[in-house]
């Protein structure tokens, strides 16, 4: 998804981004083993999530293919009753843990990506408006941002989730849970984007090229999108990467707490919640493998974001 986005932006602004992409950024990437390894990990995890239906040996959501006799099979050992072997074992309902992780990662990534996209769109639009128009619009937007920033994002997300749950009728709650999660995490995370974009806009709007664009008669909207926004894109990209890791963790946390993805459509967090129940009785694999996957995902995206921040902003070094 992010590759696609970079492509669009490259086309729009052949100057800056394309040059960075072909020059310093790629150089820095080739010379940073951490960046390369984490990019590889991210690619591997994302691809295996995307192609889960073809990779996964079982479909954990198809009740017909499940056999309760297979429950609690340890990883790599044949089941005592059926003799079937599961790479990472099975959970209480006989679901293959490897397959549930692949499918769970789909939901985690879907929620993470969509939430960040939502936050980015809201933040960028409000940031541009606040920075470019100024006046009372800016005051209102930035005051709201300040107030929201007083509260940790996860708390805001929980509140939104709780309210949305109260509004949706009980029979739709499980189906809606994923959209509610996206909405909750997205709405809780736009402030960062808005602040950065507003800052960049304040700097750029007094530059001569913006003045020129205005004199030529371009409308404010097109000046904001076409002329000012490209100059803020580097910063937006860095925040988006780091937000993605945070959003995935936030989703996992909410699901783990039981206010996220339902057990019928488990994300990594839900799987960990299920697995925690079997920690004391010795079925460690139900908990360990989803947890490791989540950790690998969050850590590699974080490392990638760290590298990107340093690479795009040499001053920070």
């Amino acid at each position: 998804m992010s590759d696609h986005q970079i492509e669009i932006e490259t086309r729009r602004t052949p100057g800056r981004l394309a040059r960075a992409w072909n020059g310093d950024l790629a150089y820095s990437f080739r010379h940073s083993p951490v960046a390369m390894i984490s990019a590889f990990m991210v690619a591997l995890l994302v691809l295996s999530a995307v192609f889960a239906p073809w990779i996964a040996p079982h479909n954990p959501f198809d009740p017909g293919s499940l056999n309760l006799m297979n429950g609690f099979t340890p990883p790599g050992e044949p089941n005592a009753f059926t003799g079937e072997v599961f790479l990472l074992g099975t959970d209480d309902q006989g679901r293959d843990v490897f397959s549930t992780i692949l499918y769970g990662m789909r939901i985690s990534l879907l929620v993470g990506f969509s939430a960040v996209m939502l936050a980015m769109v809201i933040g960028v639009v409000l940031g541009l408006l606040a920075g470019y128009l100024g006046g009372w619009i800016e005051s209102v937007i930035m005051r709201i941002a300040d107030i929201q920033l007083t509260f940790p994002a996860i708390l805001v997300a929980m509140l939104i989730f709780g309210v949305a749950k109260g509004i949706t009728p009980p029979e739709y709650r499980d189906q809606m849970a994923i959209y509610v999660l996206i909405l909750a995490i997205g709405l809780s995370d736009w402030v960062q984007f808005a602040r950065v974009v507003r800052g960049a806009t304040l700097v750029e709007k007094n530059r001569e090229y913006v003045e020129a664009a205005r004199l030529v008669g371009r409308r404010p909207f097109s000046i904001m999108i076409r002329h000012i926004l490209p100059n803020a894109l580097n910063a937006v990209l860095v925040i988006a990467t780091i937000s993605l890791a945070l959003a995935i963790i936030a989703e996992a946390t909410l699901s783990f707490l039981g206010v996220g993805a339902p057990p019928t459509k488990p994300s990594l967090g839900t799987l960990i919640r299920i697995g925690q129940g079997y920690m004391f009785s010795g079925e460690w694999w139900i908990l360990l493998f989803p947890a490791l996957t989540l950790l690998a995902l969050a850590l590699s995206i974080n490392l990638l974001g760290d590298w990107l921040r340093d690479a795009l902003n040499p001053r920070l070094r």
Partner: protein
Amino acid sequence: MLAYIIRRVAQSILVLLVTGFVAFSMFSFVGDPVENMLGQERTQADVDRLRGQLGLDQPFVVQYAKFLQQAAQGNFGLSYRQGREVSAILAERLPATLELAFVSGLLALGGGIGFGILTAIRRRGISSNVIMTLSLVGVSLPTFLIGILLIYVFSVELGWLPSFGRGEVVDLGWWTTGFLTVSGLKALVLPAITLGLYQMTLIMRLVRTEMMEVLRMDYIRFARARGLRERSINFRHALRNTLVPVITITGLQLGSIIAFAIITETVFQWPGVGLLFINAVQFVDIPVMAAYLMMISVMFVGINLIVDLLYFAIDPRLRVDGKAGGH
């Protein structure tokens, strides 16, 4: 300076009014209390009468003002789920959360400043690199996984510490404390580490960055040239100037410790307000959610205000030109 304080106080009140508005809207948009209170066989007259009794027929602004008045007195009505006064439930649960937050705050502050200084002074040392790498893992590791990991190691495998609850508590009438019993203290260890670890890494990274910045300044070079001992330079000259941002962040973190306690309390089944809140979210218990929101926002706003005012006490430069501190 006075103008600044007044502006900050006004801002805080605005925040409280807005959160109050959010809490109030939750009541009005999520579920109709009249629907809940009246049975199947109701007439329109019943509905109207009850609306009148509850004041629901009055204009929005009047209802909002009434809600604020009630909230200021700590009155949020009855919990939908437990059927008891929300304020009583909160008062009962609050000591557990505050004790947990206090201990993990101390842990975060002590560990964060200590490790921060260490990694700043010995920038290229092996210990610094190890700590920095671990801190990155710590930031990526979600709080609940840290909790589970600790439970697995210290409760399941080693059996040293309890995995849930608060242990034995001593009732002081208006406050229950776990500080006075062995089982209470034992129960506190794992949750406090879980909760404090993330804040510790944040504070550590902040102290490190600030410290490295300060150590590059001229007056430090001058102090070195004067032949002062390294210890005195590091602690008396450098550390002092890193403390302003550290206090800001710590103050803000104190608020998020209370919020993140929700996660820790769920993992460890710690009977605090966080666990209460998450149960309220699960069961859409609006009065509890609203009360928690208001309580947390009063705390946050209070902490922010105190932190801002502390600036003046710590940094004399702000007192000289009164216009500073606009952010």
